[in-house]
């Protein structure tokens, strides 16, 4: 589904990604871990098309097509979803309106009819249950005045509504208490299907107790320096990163 080859990316003059190779198949969950400043979040942002980053080398194929040529909104319409590390606030725009606009844009791109507000309300009633969210949240401004946990939950709700083929969770677990973490993890697990894939970017091993990855990758200095099964995460928790060749500071 996703083929990343020798991906290099800069922010300003600074090279952050220095040759990433990663292949993700439908139905898989990949975890990307690594020390602070290793480039984890950059990888997530580059895949979603953040304009601050410049891709200097390499290719990314998504279903055989050149992902890097697509605008961010086209990527979204094609089924790529990024759960933001720091979800953005949009005061004055209700969560319901925002999500319905996004949902309808994506449906339009697929040539499907748009949902009217009432139909959308029914859909929301079903989806808010997945993340155990109060429906009243839908009438509040997007992420405005939300607690950290509410923002992260809201990201998963958006994911549940937009039903992406490739979801990238950028440190969605950070700042969550253990109960909220379980809710988020359950949401991700509930949305897992044979034809979609998830990349979980995380700073802490804790999340991977609840979302079991097929593969774990260690990112350091802009490269993947080690890959393994789910047991690699536990080893990282115990031993840190310094024992891995290429990961030492």
């Amino acid at each position, binding site marked *: 589904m996703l083929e990343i080859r020798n991906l290099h990316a800069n922010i300003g003059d600074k090279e952050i990604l220095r040759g990433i190779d990663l292949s993700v198949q439908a139905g898989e969950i990949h975890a990307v871990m690594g020390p602070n400043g290793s480039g984890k979040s950059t990888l997530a942002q580059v895949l979603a*098309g953040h304009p601050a980053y410049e891709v200097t080398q390499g290719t990314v194929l998504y279903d055989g097509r050149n992902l890097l040529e697509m605008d961010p*909104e086209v990527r979204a319409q094609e089924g790529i979803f990024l759960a933001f590390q720091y979800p953005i606030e949009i005061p004055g725009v209700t969560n319901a309106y925002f999500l319905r606009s*996004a949902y309808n844009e994506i449906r339009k791109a697929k040539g499907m009819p748009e949902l009217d507000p009432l139909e959308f309300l029914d859909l929301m009633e079903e989806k808010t249950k997945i993340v155990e969210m109060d429906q009243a949240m839908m009438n509040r401004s997007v992420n405005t005045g939300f607690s950290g946990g509410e923002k992260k939950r809201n990201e998963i709700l958006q994911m549940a509504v937009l039903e992406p083929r490739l979801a990238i969770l950028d440190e969605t677990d950070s700042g969550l208490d253990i109960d909220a973490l379980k809710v988020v993890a359950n949401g991700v697990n509930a949305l897992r299907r044979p034809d979609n894939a998830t990349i979980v970017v995380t700073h802490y091993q804790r999340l991977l107790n609840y979302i079991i990855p097929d593969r774990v990758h260690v990112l350091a200095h802009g490269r993947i320096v080690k890959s393994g099964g789910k047991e690699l995460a536990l080893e990282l928790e115990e031993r840190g990163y310094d024992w891995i060749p290429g990961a030492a500071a």
Partner: protein
Amino acid sequence: MSSAIESLVNKEYAYGFVTDVETDSIGRGLSEDVIRLISSKKNEPAFMLEWRLKAYRRWLTMKEPHWGNLHYEPIDYQNIIYYSAPKSVKPLQSLDEVDPELLRAYEKLGISLNEQKKLAGVAVDAIFDSVSVGTTMKEELSKYGIVFCSFGEAVQNHPELVERYLGTVVPHSDNFYAALNAAVFSDGSFCYVPKGVKCPMELSTYFRINSADTGQFERTLIIADEGASVSYLEGCTAPRRDTNQLHAAVVELIALDNASVKYSTVQNWYAGDSEGKGGIFNFVTKRGKCAGVNSKISWTQVETGSAITWKYPSVILQGDNSTGEFYSVAVVNNHQQADTGTKMIHIGKNTKSNIVSKGISAGHGNNSYRGQVKILPRATNARNYTQCDSMLIGNQCGAHTFPYIEVQNNTATLEHEASTSKIGEDQIFYCKQRGLSAEHAVSMIVSGFCREVFQNLPMEFAVEAQQLLGITLEGSVG
């Protein structure tokens, strides 16, 4: 900030055309003779001329104020034409006599003066350069006893009302620009709503500057008598020229016992080009007086035009239980500068004021909110709520907040909220990542930001204001 945000594209100003009509102008400069000439051209009674001359003499002793956070080349007041009127405008019996060229000009602005094609439920007074060219729906309004006409006509037909109320809210000596206006104003709108009458439709004035080098000095006076209510709209445009033009208007509102006046403005004077060349200097004094008990005055403004805006629609809360409101969206792009806000002067008991100000700065624009809340000793149980939000687009622009709070009565309740935020790549990117286009994202973010103010605009204007905002900011992001 990325080059994307810096690449400010200036959308063509849609109202920049010039209309070719013969005008009756006087020479440049200002003197007592000029004032006498204006007064005689308007065929005014003696009290008007005296008032004008008093203002002029006072003006001569006054200094141009420079406390605003505004920077501009000095204005040469002797190089301005103080009177210009379309020649055809002599006493008109009906709108059919209006120069077709003028009617076409207003058609182009989307304002129909033709009674048959009148905007649904809106009466319009059209001011072209300094003179009213026509007022619609007059007859309909007169059934209710409502006087809605040009200021000039009011002086001729209702001199007693004019003499009684003119300058009672903004005295001839109030400030430099107000004194200048009092001396030379040539026309404007006048409205009187008699006791107990709720005005059945929106009233509207559409201001248009056309001639080059003329200053525009109109004066609006609105009186809501006991128990009356009226909602009033004002729109403004001007041609694209590379010299600056002066606009120094005065608006006075009076609400007597249990009366209410709602005054909405969509100000879209020519703002100058993307280099900051040309544009209107907009120095305006707007003030309302809640003279009676339980009265209410509400200002709503959407300020998107002008090179310079200096404007503080204020309310004097004199009557007990009276309410003053100010809702404002001020947008600056390119090299525009705005120093705007309000004054709420609490004099009566249980008076309430509400201020919501939203400033948006893009390009090299500079936006200042300047607001005063004053609670005088007699004003027990006064309440004020102020919310002041600034949004920055790009990093060459500025937002400044200058609140002044003066409390002389300790039973007052004051609440103040302020925020500054930046609309940037991250917000746009978030929306795009959810499948929305950049334009959709910007309009969504900006209208969300301005929501509380738009909610207070009359329906017809809310749509226009929202579109205007989109145009002013077009190309400033993404």
